[in-house]
């Protein structure tokens, strides 16, 4: 028998839909109450079993997807575009068709996280991993003429680094990372013992929307600044002040002009 008080909250916990305010309370309760913990475990097992059972429906011969179906659908999407070719909402439709075709053909899984800025989320994780690493960079050099050429042949793009001689910033080095499956450069800078990661990756839609020219935010306590320039997405992450991040950002932006 479980505590009646927590029944709906336990379900919300198992469904990962519990409000942040309730989360710690429920977690504390679960540590103290074995029967509720068992109930949550059961709920999760049940969810897994249901998911597996639901997914396997289309493995049955009766429901297996007809291999021609996809092709037929793509065709009908294309042919539906043609008769309306002259209409005034053509540009919007063409964009929509392209986007949906992409969804059909490239197996894009748009999840609940659609809309969240993927580039920032991954950059934060990479920065945290770098701080924890014994070998934070692969090319160790304070010289921009050493660091930049190291990326040659490793990245499908190139970039310029600013001269830092008269600035409080120091270049520590760089390494090759991946953001949303695309190769990216991570450059590590230092200011007064604080480290700043700068990520450069080719700007693509899947990185997440960036509606303003320059976006400065706080994420998980880190100062973040991101912008698009010359076909590249820049993301800066650091535990130093937003002003320090912004000043280095200005140097980078000037160098890229």
């Amino acid at each position: 028998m479980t505590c009646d008080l927590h029944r709906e909250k336990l379900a919300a916990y198992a469904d990962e839909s519990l409000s942040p305010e309730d989360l710690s309370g429920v977690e504390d309760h679960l540590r103290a109450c074995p029967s509720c913990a068992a109930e949550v475990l059961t709920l999760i097992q049940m969810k897994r079993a249901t998911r597996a059972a639901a997914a396997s429906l289309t493995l049955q011969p009766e429901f297996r997807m007809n291999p021609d179906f996809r092709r037929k659908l793509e065709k009908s999407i294309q042919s539906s575009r043609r008769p309306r070719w002259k209409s005034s909402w053509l540009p919007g439709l063409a964009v929509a068709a392209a986007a949906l075709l992409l969804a059909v053909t490239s197996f894009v899984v748009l999840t609940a996280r659609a809309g969240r800025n993927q580039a920032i989320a991954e950059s934060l994780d990479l920065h945290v991993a770098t701080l924890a690493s014994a070998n934070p960079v692969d090319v160790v050099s304070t010289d921009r003429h050493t660091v930049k050429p190291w990326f040659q042949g490793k990245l499908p793009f190139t970039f310029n680094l600013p001269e830092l001689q008269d600035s409080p910033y120091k270049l520590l080095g760089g390494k090759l990372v991946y953001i949303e499956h695309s190769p990216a450069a991570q450059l590590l800078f230092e200011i007064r013992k604080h480290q700043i990661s700068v990520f450069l990756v080719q700007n693509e839609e899947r990185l997440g929307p960036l509606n303003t020219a320059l976006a400065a935010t706080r994420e998980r306590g880190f100062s973040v600044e991101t912008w698009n320039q010359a076909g590249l997405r820049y993301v800066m992450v650091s535990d130093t002040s937003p002003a320090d991040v912004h000043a280095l950002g200005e140097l980078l932006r000037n160098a890229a002009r």
Partner: protein
Amino acid sequence: MPLFARLYNFACWLTRDRTAAEDLVQETFMKALKGFASFQQGTNFHAWIYRILRNAFLNSQAGLQASVSLDAGDDAPLEPSTAETPESLLLARLESESIQAALHELPMNFREIVLLCDFEEMSYQEISLAIGIPIGTVMSRLSRARKAMRTLLAAKLQGVPR
């Protein structure tokens, strides 16, 4: 599972018929295409496209018959929990087939919400957007649906020779 396959799978669960499911997915894509301008960047694509699928289903022949059960049954008070079913034990003995059979037997509105939550892995917020019901109703309907599912599974277990 990719979006396209997931929509098709979901359509199969709603229609229980391959041809009807194909028609439904096709209609969903055509409608999504036409309505793409109304989709606002940054809002929830998953809930948006599922909503289109659901409306297309409700307008279909099979959907018209099912529509009564899709939006019914939330007003009845939740019955007090009676005998607890030891699901862990139960799950260990139940095959995927039994769970599928139980899902098929569930009323349409229960089947839909269980699948949105457990198969589509939508949050309560997303489910609320997709079916257009308040979060409180999402929680109570889910709770009822799961209880119904447990009852069905328990009945199946009792039918299993020991």
